[in-house]
C-alpha cells in the first residue's frame, strides 16, 4: 500500500511535465511560425501586354489570414476578382500557410500604367508592397517573317478582293483567323475593333475551317466573311481589325472527359488596315431610270389583267435577281404613266447566301388605268451600274398591250407573261375579288365555353343520367325484394283505403266501413308480420307485435279496432262521427305499425 501511495504522485508529476513540455513546444513553434512566416507580396504574371489581352495580378498573404484585402483601382484598367486560393505546407518541420487573391486586369487603352503600393494587415502587422508597372501597347499585326517563322500562336489576316470600288457597291471582306497546331481549343472569339469608315457593315458569316501550312507549322484557318457597302467616293480604309480570343495550350486530352489542364491565354489579334479606292459613279450616259442600283442584275416582268375596265387594278410583278444591295433596292419611277394611278409597291427579298448580297427581290405594284383611251402599259425600265465593267446597263420590258373598257365590269384576270411561261404551282397573281353581300353578321361576345349559363346547361345530361341510374337501382331493388314490394303495395292500399274509410264514414255506410277497416288491418298486420293477411288472429298479432317492439298503447288501440269490427257484425249501425273517429284511430295505429322495425 505504501508503494502504491508513493507511485501515484510520481506518475501524476511525470504526466504533468509531459503536457507542460508539449504546450511550451507548441507555443514556441507557433511563435516561430507567427514571427517568421507573415508576409504580403503582389505580382503580375506579365508586365507588358497588348491591348485586348489580360494580365493577372496575384496578391499573396503568407503566415495568416489578411484582415483586409486591398483592391487596386487604376483608371484605364478594368480590374475584376478572378478567385481566391489557400494552401498549407510543412517544410523541414515548419508549417507555412498562404492565401492568394487573384485579379484579372483588362486594359481599356494603351499606355503605361502603375499599380500603386498595396497595404494589408496580417496578424496585427502592416505590410506594404512595391508599386508595379504595366506597359500596354497597341496591338500590331505580326510581320511576315514572324508568321513564317511559326512563332505566332495565332494571327489574323484581312482579305479584300476589290481594290477599286464604287459607291453603292457591296463587297465581301474576309478576315482569316489562323491558329497554330498546338492550340488545343479556343473560346470567346470576338472582334474588338472593326473600323470601316465610309462603309456600311452588313451581315457576317463564318465559313468552314481549313488547314494551311505556313513555314514549318500547320495552322487551322477560320474564315469570317463580312458584307460591306461602299457609302462614298474617295480613299477608304478597312481596319485595322482587332479581335481577342482565349487560347488553350498544353492540356491533356482524356477522350470522353475532354481537355484537362493546360494553359489558358487571352490573345489579341490584329490585321493591318487595307486601303480601297472608291471611284465616283460616272456622270455621263446615266440612264433616266437609274435610281442608284449598283451591282449585276437580271429582270423578269409580268402584269395582269390586260383586259379590264377603267379603274380596275393591274398587278405588275417585277423580279430583280443578281448581286448587289438587293435589300435596299427600290423600283425606279417610270415615265409615261400619267394615265395610270400608281400605288406604293410591296416587295419581298429572298437571299441566296448568308451575306444577303445575292438573291432575288420581287416587287408587286398596283396600277389602275384612269381612262378608256389607255391601250398599253408603258415600257418598264430598270437601270443599274455594273462595277465589273464600269458602265450603266438598262433592262427594258416592252409595253404591254391593254384593253380598257369604260364599263365597270371586271373580266376574269389574264396574266401577261411575255418572257417566261407560267410555272406550275406559281404564286397566284391577284387576290380573290371582294364580296358583294355583307353576309351573316357575326355576334360579338364571349365564347360560349366561358358563359356560366352554357356551362350550367351541361349539367342536365349528367343529372338525367344519374336520375335514370337511381331509378333503375330502385326498380331493381324492388323487383328483387318481395317484402319491400309488399310493403309498398300495402302502403298504397292503406293510402287508398283511408280515403275509402273517410268516404264511408261520411256516407254512414257502416258495413262497408268496417269490412274495409278489417281488411286493411289484416293487410297491414300481414305485411308487418310477414305472413298471409287472412291468417292473422288477434292473439297471434299481439305476441308477435310485442316482439317487434310495439307499445302497449298501440296494441290496445289495435285490439279496440278489432273489437269494433267484431261488434259491427252484430250492431252495425253507428253514427258518422263514430266512424270518423275510428278511421282516425286506424290511421294512427297504422302509422305506428309502419314505424316498427321488421
Amino acid at each position, binding site marked *: 500500500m505504501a508503494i502504491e501511495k508513493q507511485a501515484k504522485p510520481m506518475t501524476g508529476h511525470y504526466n504533468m511535465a509531459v503536457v507542460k513540455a508539449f504546450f511550451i513546444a507548441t507555443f514556441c513553434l507557433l511563435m516561430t511560425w507567427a514571427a517568421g512566416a507573415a508576409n504580403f507580396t503582389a505580382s503580375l504574371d506579365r508586365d507588358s501586354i497588348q491591348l485586348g489581352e489580360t494580365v493577372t495580378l496575384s496578391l499573396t498573404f503568407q503566415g495568416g489570414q489578411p484582415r483586409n484585402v486591398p483592391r487596386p483601382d487604376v483608371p484605364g484598367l478594368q480590374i475584376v476578382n478572378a478567385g481566391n486560393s489557400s494552401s498549407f505546407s510543412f517544410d523541414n518541420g515548419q508549417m507555412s500557410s498562404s492565401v492568394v487573391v487573384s485579379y484579372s486586369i483588362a486594359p481599356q487603352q494603351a499606355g503605361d500604367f502603375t499599380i500603386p503600393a498595396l497595404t494589408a494587415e496580417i496578424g496585427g502587422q502592416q505590410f506594404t508592397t512595391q508599386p508595379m508597372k504595366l506597359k500596354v501597347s497597341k496591338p500590331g499585326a505580326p510581320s511576315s517573317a514572324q508568321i513564317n517563322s511559326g512563332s505566332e500562336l495565332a494571327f489574323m489576316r484581312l482579305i479584300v478582293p476589290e481594290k477599286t470600288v464604287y459607291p453603292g457597291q457591296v463587297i465581301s471582306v474576309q478576315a482569316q483567323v489562323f491558329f497554330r497546331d498546338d492550340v488545343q481549343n479556343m473560346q470567346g472569339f470576338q472582334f474588338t475593333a472593326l473600323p470601316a469608315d465610309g462603309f456600311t457593315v452588313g451581315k457576317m458569316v463564318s465559313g468552314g475551317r481549313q488547314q494551311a501550312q505556313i513555314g514549318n507549322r500547320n495552322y487551322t484557318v477560320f474564315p469570317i466573311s463580312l458584307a460591306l457597302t461602299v457609302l462614298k467616293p474617295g480613299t477608304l480604309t478597312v481596319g485595322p481589325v482587332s479581335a481577342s480570343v482565349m487560347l488553350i495550350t498544353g492540356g491533356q486530352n482524356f477522350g470522353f472527359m475532354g481537355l484537362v489542364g493546360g494553359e489558358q491565354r487571352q490573345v489579341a489579334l490584329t490585321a493591318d488596315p487595307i486601303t480601297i479606292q472608291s471611284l465616283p459613279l460616272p456622270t455621263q450616259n446615266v440612264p433616266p431610270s437609274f435610281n442608284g442600283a449598283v451591282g449585276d442584275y437580271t429582270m423578269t416582268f409580268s402584269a395582269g389583267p390586260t383586259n379590264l375596265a377603267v379603274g380596275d*387594278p393591274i398587278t405588275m410583278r417585277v423580279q430583280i435577281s443578281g448581286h448587289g444591295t438587293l435589300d435596299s433596292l427600290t423600283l425606279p419611277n417610270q415615265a409615261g404613266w400619267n394615265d395610270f394611278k400608281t400605288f406604293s409597291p410591296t416587295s419581298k427579298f429572298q437571299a441566296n447566301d448568308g451575306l444577303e448580297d445575292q438573291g432575288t427581290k420581287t416587287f408587286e405594284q398596283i396600277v389602275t388605268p384612269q381612262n378608256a383611251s389607255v391601250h398599253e402599259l408603258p415600257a418598264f425600265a430598270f437601270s443599274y451600274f455594273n462595277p465589273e465593267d464600269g458602265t450603266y446597263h438598262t433592262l427594258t420590258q416592252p409595253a404591254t398591250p391593254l384593253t380598257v373598257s369604260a364599263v365597270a365590269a371586271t373580266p376574269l384576270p389574264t396574266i401577261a407573261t411575255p418572257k417566261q411561261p407560267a410555272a406550275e404551282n406559281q404564286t397566284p397573281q391577284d387576290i380573290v375579288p371582294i364580296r358583294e353581300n355583307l353576309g351573316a353578321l357575326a355576334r360579338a361576345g364571349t*365564347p360560349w365555353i366561358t358563359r356560366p349559363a*352554357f356551362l350550367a346547361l351541361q349539367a342536365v345530361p349528367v343529372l338525367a343520367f344519374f336520375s335514370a341510374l337511381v331509378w333503375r337501382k330502385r326498380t331493381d331493388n324492388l323487383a328483387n325484394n318481395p317484402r319491400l314490394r309488399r310493403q309498398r303495395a300495402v302502403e298504397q292500399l292503406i293510402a287508398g283505403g283511408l280515403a275509402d274509410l273517410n268516404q264511408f264514414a261520411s256516407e254512414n255506410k257502416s258495413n262497408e266501413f268496417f269490412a274495409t277497416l278489417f281488411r286493411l288491418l289484416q293487410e297491414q298486420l300481414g305485411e308487418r308480420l310477414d305472413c298471409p293477411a287472412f291468417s292473422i288472429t288477434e292473439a297471434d298479432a299481439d305476441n308477435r307485435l310485442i316482439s317487434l317492439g310495439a307499445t302497449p298503447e298501440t296494441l290496445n288501440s289495435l285490439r279496440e279496432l278489432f273489437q269494433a269490427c267484431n261488434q259491427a257484425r252484430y250492431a252495425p249501425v253507428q253514427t258518422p262521427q263514430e266512424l270518423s273517429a275510428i278511421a282516425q284511430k286506424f290511421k294512427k295505429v297504422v302509422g305506428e305499425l309502419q314505424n316498427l322495425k321488421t
Partner: protein
Amino acid sequence: MKRLLFILSAVLICATTLLASDATANFSSANQLYDEGKFSQAAKSYETMLNAGVVSPNLLFNTGNAEIKSGNLGRAIAAYRRAELLAPRDVDVRANLNFARNQVQGGAFSGSHWDAMLGALTLNEWTVLAAMAFWLTFGLFAAMQIRPALKNILQGPARGLAVLTVLLCLCLGVAANTHFSKQIAVVVSPDAVTRSGPFSDAQNAFAVHDGAELAVLDRRNNWVQVADNSGRSGWIQDGQVEVLPAI
C-alpha cells in the same frame, strides 16, 4: 307588363332591321369605292363599319382586299386573319391570306400543325360539337338505364361516343387554351423595329417588315413583347401591331 314587353320587342326588332339595312347600304357604298379603284377610301369605309360594331366575315374579307390594294399589307393580313377566325373554312379568305403572306418580306409565316388543325373550326363550333357528343353520350347511357332491353344495342355506340366525347373535349380544351393564352401580333407599320426592352431608347433588337406575324410573349404598358419564327424576341410599340387571337 305584357304591353311594355311587346313595345320593347318591337323597338328592338326595328332597330336591328334599321341597323342591318344601314350596314348593307354602307357596305355597298364601300364596295363601289373599291370598284372605282379608290382602295384607301374603301378601306376607311369598311373600317368605319367595323368600328361601329358591324362584324361579318365578308366585311373583314373586303377590308383585307382594300388594304392590300392600298399597299397596307399588315392591315390586310390582320383583316384576313380576323375573317378567318369567324369563317375558318372560307377558301377565299385563306387564298387571299396566303397571297398577302407571300408579299411579306423576311420569311413566310409558319404556324403549328396543331393550330392549323384546331383552327379549322371556331371555338364556338368546337364547343357545340363537344357539347353535342357529351349530351348524346349521357343520353344513351340514361336510355340504357331506363330501357335495359336496349342495352345490347346501345352499348357499343355509347362507348364509341364516350371516346369521341373525350377526344372532342380534349380538342376543345386545347383550342380554348390557345384562344385565350396565345396571341399573334401582325405588324401594320412599314418601318417597325423591335427593341431589346419596353422603352423607346432601348437598343434595336431586330427589324420586322409590314405584315410579319409574330408570337406575343408579354405586354407591358403600350409595348408588346414578340418573337419571330427563329426565336428572336423583342419589344414593339402596340401601335405598330394588331394583336389577334392565334385561333
